[in-house]
């Protein structure tokens, strides 16, 4: 039981490091480029902005969930 817990914690720590590196890259690349475009949309096309906001947050959530699941599988060698 203890060995299993240690393995889980180790896998989680590795996942966190890999994930953090990917997310930092995401902050500076994707969000930086999206910023101006979204600002213009928010100022001039509010309804389109509202729809785009929902699509973006759902899209990102789906991608991140798949990414974290994939990372867990790669690191632990099996799905949770």
């Amino acid at each position, binding site marked *: 039981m203890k060995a299993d817990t240690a393995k889980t914690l180790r896998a989680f720590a590795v996942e966190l490091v890999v994930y953090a590196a990917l997310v930092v890259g*995401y902050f500076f690349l994707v969000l930086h480029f999206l*910023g101006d475009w979204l600002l213009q949309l928010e100022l001039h096309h509010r309804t389109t*902005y*509202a729809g785009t906001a*929902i699509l973006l*947050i759902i899209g990102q959530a789906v991608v*991140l969930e798949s*990414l974290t699941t994939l990372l867990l599988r790669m690191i632990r060698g099996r799905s*949770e």
Partner: protein
Amino acid sequence: MFFPISGAHISPIYLAIVGFLIGIMGGFFGVGGSFIAGPALRLAGLDWNFAVGTDLAHIVGKSVVAAKRHRALGNIDLRLGLIMAIGTIGGAEVGAQLIQMLKRAGNVNTVVSIVSIAVYLGISSFMIWESWKTFQMQKNKAPRANLKGPERKRDESAFKPATRAIQRMKIWPMVSLPVSGVKSISLWVIIIVSFVGGVFSGFLGGGAGYIRMPSMVYLLGIPTHLAVGTDLFEIIISASYGTFSHAIKGNVDILIALVMNTGAAIGAQIGAICTQYFTGPKIRLAFVPLPLIGVVIVIYTLWSGHKL
């Protein structure tokens, strides 16, 4: 990092950490966590209107991640979630209208504060009593570790007689919820429960998961694990509606919500996975402090005159 839509300077690390903590809570309890996210965004210097709207957008993202994980664990009743979404959206609109009425009457803060303190304290006290009674009942039964598969998720509850009485009410149309193990229940009961949750959501703000999740367990008889997962699925729909509405009014900085969601994505998965290791009564007992945090926040706002 500068967020041009709201004009705020906020550390992305801070946002990701807040998202991570709320994600764990949301994945485990099936709540939106707005009573923590809202104040956390205010603390970072975001205007109140942006804090409310952006928090809703973040709740959508976090709930998608947690709901996907709960779906993989078999913890979502899609039929129940869709029915509840109708009641919640309707209730949220009524709650918002009630707020407008109270604003016109000039006593909105006092009424909302007293109602919320009473509701939060009531939920916490009831859940402490019910969980304790259930633990007492379980002492005389076979250990749940011996049970396998869906049997392990089947809940014990000291409130079961009242739940059965509610399920026996024959008010047409009746629906069955095979995923949740409910053979027959009136559609109106589900709509009313979700509608009341929606009213509190519109009245007190946020997703009101701390009212809806216990209502699903005690009034509809949904097993705790399924109530958590289904509540998250339902929150996706109702919070999306709220996000759209707030975004049109210029209250959503989606860039902040996206950054918060990076932390929430991993936190929500951890929270959802953790539900596997706890029985229903333990999850319900651990839930008790959440409404109490709400009480502390409301008393603080009453005392200081500031809205967090």
